Every structure is written in structure tokens, then in C-alpha cells.
């Protein structure tokens, strides 16, 4: 029994370490793509066209989004849902920092990665979660363009939204991608969440629960 407990705690410790490494790896992977975005030619008029020898902000946003979503899907599916299915003592929990045997929720995992990228002065872009039905009010649309993007994603399933906006005298290229319910842990937790409002949808697999927003200064 004791050795089993020791083994279990080692597993938990390894899992927490691997989460930290994953965060760092995600940030590093994203950063590897950064020099591409800083190549000449990424002006407003060229946001969606390919300049000679470089990539467009849209291509850059598509690339970093692919990395984000790969990690997000793996974490939600193979870590959080897998632990739930095994009825493991370790759970994804909002207050994981102060609670034994708990790991971050997928949304927290995503936000912590976004914060690490945000802290990196070389990154040159930011990303975040947004939703029309945010359980965390920090994730509601904050600008007119963001609201427009979320409406667009709802009305055009499967499509991405691209646009430009000016915030604080700085122009940005904005890409918003549908954030889908990829794992059972996503919709089961969201559907039962006490913060859900009266108009909250009943989510199921592959439903668009919100958007992943990538913002690049032009």
C-alpha cells in the first residue's frame, strides 16, 4: 500500500513537472515561428497577401494557432479526460495551486501558456480565449471586432474570422478560430458549470464553444 502511494505521488509530481515543461515547450515552439512574422512586408495592406520571401500575418496566425490547438487538444483529451475516465485521484480543478492532487483546467493551461508568450518581449503577438457564453468573465468579447468575430463563428461553422482593428493608436491583425469541444471533459464540465447563464447552450462533441483569438501588431 505504501509503495503504491509513493508511486502515485511520484506520478503526480512527474505530471506537474511535465505540465511545466509542456508550457515552456509550447512557448518555445511558438517563438520559433516568430522570426517569420517579423520579415519585411507585413503591413496592413499586405496582411492577407504573400510578400516576396516572407509570410503574411494570416499565415503566421494560422501557424501558431495550429500549435496551440494541438497542445490544447492533447491536454484536454489525453490528460484531463483520461484522468476522469480512470477515476484517478488527480483531477483538473480551478483552484489547483492550493489543492492536493489537482492540475489546471484546460482553459487555465491555455491561459498560462498565453501569459508566458505575453511575457516574452520577442513574441510579437498575443493570444487568448473568447466566448459568447464565458464561464470566466475575463473571456468575454472585449471589442466590437471580437464580438463580430464570435458572431461570425456562430453563423459560419467551420470558418475562421480575420480582421483588423486599432487599439490605443496601434493597428492589429486579428484572427479568431473556432474553439471546439474536442474532449468529453470539455462539454461535461461546461454543461454542469454553475456559472452558466440561462441562455447557455447544451454542448456536445465538436460544438463551437468559443474562439481562440490571435492578435498581431501591424
Amino acid at each position, binding site marked *: 500500500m505504501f509503495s503504491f502511494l509513493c508511486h502515485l505521488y511520484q506520478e503526480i509530481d512527474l505530471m506537474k513537472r511535465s505540465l511545466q515543461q509542456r508550457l515552456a515547450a509550447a512557448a518555445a515552439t511558438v517563438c520559433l515561428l516568430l522570426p517569420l512574422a517579423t520579415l519585411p512586408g507585413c503591413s496592413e495592406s499586405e496582411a492577407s497577401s504573400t510578400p516576396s520571401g516572407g509570410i503574411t500575418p494570416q499565415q503566421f496566425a494560422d501557424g501558431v494557432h495550429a500549435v496551440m490547438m494541438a497542445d490544447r487538444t492533447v491536454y484536454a483529451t489525453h490528460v484531463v479526460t483520461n484522468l476522469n475516465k480512470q477515476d484517478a485521484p488527480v483531477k483538473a480543478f480551478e483552484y489547483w495551486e492550493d489543492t492536493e492532487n489537482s492540475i489546471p483546467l484546460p482553459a487555465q493551461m491555455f491561459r498560462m501558456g498565453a501569459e508566458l508568450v505575453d511575457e516574452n518581449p520577442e513574441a510579437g503577438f498575443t493570444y487568448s480565449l473568447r466566448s459568447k457564453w464565458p464561464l470566466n468573465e475575463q473571456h468575454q468579447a472585449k471589442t466590437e471586432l471580437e464580438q463580430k468575430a464570435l458572431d461570425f463563428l456562430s453563423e459560419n461553422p467551420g470558418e475562421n474570422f480575420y480582421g483588423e482593428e486599432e487599439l*490605443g493608436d496601434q493597428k492589429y491583425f486579428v484572427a479568431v478560430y473556432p474553439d471546439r469541444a474536442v474532449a468529453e471533459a470539455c462539454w461535461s464540465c461546461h454543461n454542469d458549470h454553475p456559472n452558466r447563464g440561462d441562455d447557455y447552450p447544451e454542448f456536445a462533441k465538436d460544438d463551437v464553444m468559443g474562439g481562440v483569438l490571435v492578435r498581431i501588431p501591424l
Partner: protein
Amino acid sequence: MMIQLKPIWNAFRESPHGPKWLTWAAINLSIAAYFGYGLVAPASSHKTVWLPGETTHGHYQIELDCNACHDPGRSSEGPSSSDVMQDACIRCHGEQLDLAKDTHPAKKFRDPTNAERLKILDAQNCLTCHQEHAPEQTLAMGLTMPADYCWHCHQEVADSRPSHRGMAYDSCATAGCHNYHDNRALYEKYLDDHHGQSDHLELAALPRRSTAETLSGAIRVQEPLAVADADHPPSWTTDDSLLNDWATTAHAMAGVNCSHCHRGDGDSTSDDGAWSEQVAMERCRQCHQRQVESFMTGKHGMRLAAGLSPMTPEQARLPMHAGQAHAELDCSACHSGHRFDTPFAATDACLRCHADDHSLAYGDSSHAALWREELAGNGPAGSGVSCATCHLPRLDGDSGIWVNHDQNANLRPNETMARQVCTHCHGLEYSLSALADPQSVASCFAEAPTERIKSVQMAHEWFQQQEAKRAARRNNR
């Protein structure tokens, strides 16, 4: 072109107003020299003339070292740093904010969608809320802006938290409920986890210190030493009482001989240097790094950290006993050789200097009675409450329980003390209520708090409501 001084001098001599002119010139030169020297002088009272206004209680100790905050050369980004004072804040307080899990770090506002909000209140700049040299507008905790700052972003809080409806817009941080930076003892889950605790816990005791385990780096405890093992120079006139004192200490028990502290210049790790009667703090630091470094970040040690002379009670703004006016604060001020008496350092050393209401009331408090009982051997270890119990808290570190020697760390804000100290013996609601009651603080908690803070109950009810909603969803399925 050479200036011919002789004709000027002759003109002065021959002028009927010559002496007056000379006097005028001398006075002006003296004034210019006085102010000019203040600009270039090292940190000292000469700088006083350039102080634009009284500094806060957290910075007055180093106010005469203008460069501590205003020197671009000290910035990590070099002399061209664009925000010299902001860098100075982060240099001293950045790590503290990280440890406090700052709930409003500057990075939180980096999202470009905050651009319009930041125009109203620049939450990325410490100086927006914490200006210095502005005593006429300085509130508690060095706050220099109206206390309604929460309102700008949280005015709709009652929509998601109906329990907050009708609360005063400036009461968020003044009712024992929230702090802008440090909410480790105030956030909802922690409150709920400690709901329902009795005022006085049944198991009331401090954790034991892991002194040996928390020594610095490669320092290892050696074989115990006795008086006969003392390796002082043969020529040195032996003071038996001093050696006997040393032989009873943890130092002797851990194999720390005379030469470990008295040889070397203090900066060296070698024991081969010249014998020195004085022991520099750097010597203490070799084994007690964390304790020395934390001492340097508190009000006792911050002058030393800034390269100034040690703090003395004479310089303090709090009431102090006159007899100790010139006592210099370093390790040996409280841990005097050769006994390094920790019970003395934990209370008597403090009360030797401090003479404010809180300190003077300690002796008659139930905390002090428990401390006396423990020292007399009538109370279990850790059951007494000394000054150090609360102000030099025993914290759980990577290698064991260590004593934080920054006596201000859990007063920024004082609710932090509830989590680090009070809850070893008291319920959280009782602890927060006592810390939020100025009368209770002044009397050294001689009486129970007159008013109970509501946040613990509110957090508990909120979690109950959340769980009820979850259960209702499951039942309706």
C-alpha cells in the same frame, strides 16, 4: 581666454560698495556650494535639502540615497532605461510580488484591449498608485490615489456576485476582504476551506524550525565541539564565560568553531584570514543565507541593502526607547554573541527598542503568558507566542521550516499574517477579524475583535450556491 581677476578685485576695493558686493558674492557662493554639494554628496543628511517632500513609512529609511530610486545606471536595462523609478520598484519588490501571487500584475493589463482602461488608470505603472514625496495624499500602504480604484474595472461585480450589492465603492480593500496585490489569505477558496473553524483551535502550535536542513548551500553540520576544541589563537586571552556560552549553542553542537566566524574578512569563504573580533554579516550569510537576505528586505535591514549605515532606533518613525537610540541593527543586534539566544532575540531584543502601544501591551497579553509558560517548560514546544512568532514567521520552504527575517513581509498587507501565522492557533475568520480591528492590533490582541469580517461566510455561501446549482443540473438530467 584668461579671466583677469586683479582688475576685478581692484574694482571691488575701489568701489564704495565693495565690501557689500564681496559679502553678497560670498553668501551666494556659500548657498550654491551648500546645494551643489547636496547633489553630488554620497547618501547622507547633506541630501536633505533636495528632498521634495516626506517619503512614506516604507521608504524613509533610504530616502537620503536618492540614487536608490532615481539612478538610471542601477536599472537592469542599463542607463538608457525609459522608466527609472518603475525599475527601482521592481528591483526591490518584484520578487515579493511574485511570492505573493500578485493578483494584479502589470502583465495582466498588457492585453491591447485594455488600452482605453489604461488611459484612465495606468495599472502597469507602480507610480500610478504609489507616488513618493507626497505626504498630503498618502494613505495606508503607501497608496496615493483615491481609494475607489477598484471601481473603475469592477463596478459591475454585483452582477456575478449578488452578495456584493450595495457595498461601498471604496470598501473593497478596507474591510478585511480584498487586497490589490496579495490575496493569499483572502481568496474565495482559501476562505471556504477555513469556514466554520472555532476561534481557538484545539491543536495550537507553531511548526518546529528545521535549522540544520535550511542551512545554505554546501554547509553541513559537523561533529559537536566542546570548550577544549575552541580554535581561537593561542595568544588570545581566553574569556571562559564567553567560551562556555559558545559551548552551549547550536553553533558548537553543529561543529562551528571560533575560526568559522572570526577568521577571514567576512566576504571570503576561507577560514585562513586574519583573526577579527567583529563578525561581518557576510560571515553569518555563509550559513544563514536566507535569513540574512530576508533581513535585508525588511525595514530593519533595507538600509544595509542600499549600502547605507545600519538602521538605528533613532531614525525610526515608530516610538522607540530612548536608551537604544544609537543601537545599530545587524545580526548581532538581536543574536548577540556568544549565546545567540533565540528566545531573547524573539521578544526581549524587540522590546528593548520598540515602545509603541502594540509592543508595550505585549507583556500583559495572553500571547505573552503562553510564551512565558513555554520558556518555563510548562507549555509544549511551539505553544508560546513571542514577537518573532508573528513578525518573523516560520515558513515552509523547499528544504524545511525556515524563519523569514523580513519582519514586514506579512504586514504587506497584515492579512498575510493570518495565513502564515495566526491560523496555526486560530480560526481564519477570527484571525482576519482581529487583524482588521485597529483597537485589537493596538492592544496586542488583548481582547477579541469587536466585529467579525463577513468574507469567510460569504465565500462559503457562494460555494454552497454553486454546488446547489450543479446538483440541480444533475437531478434535472
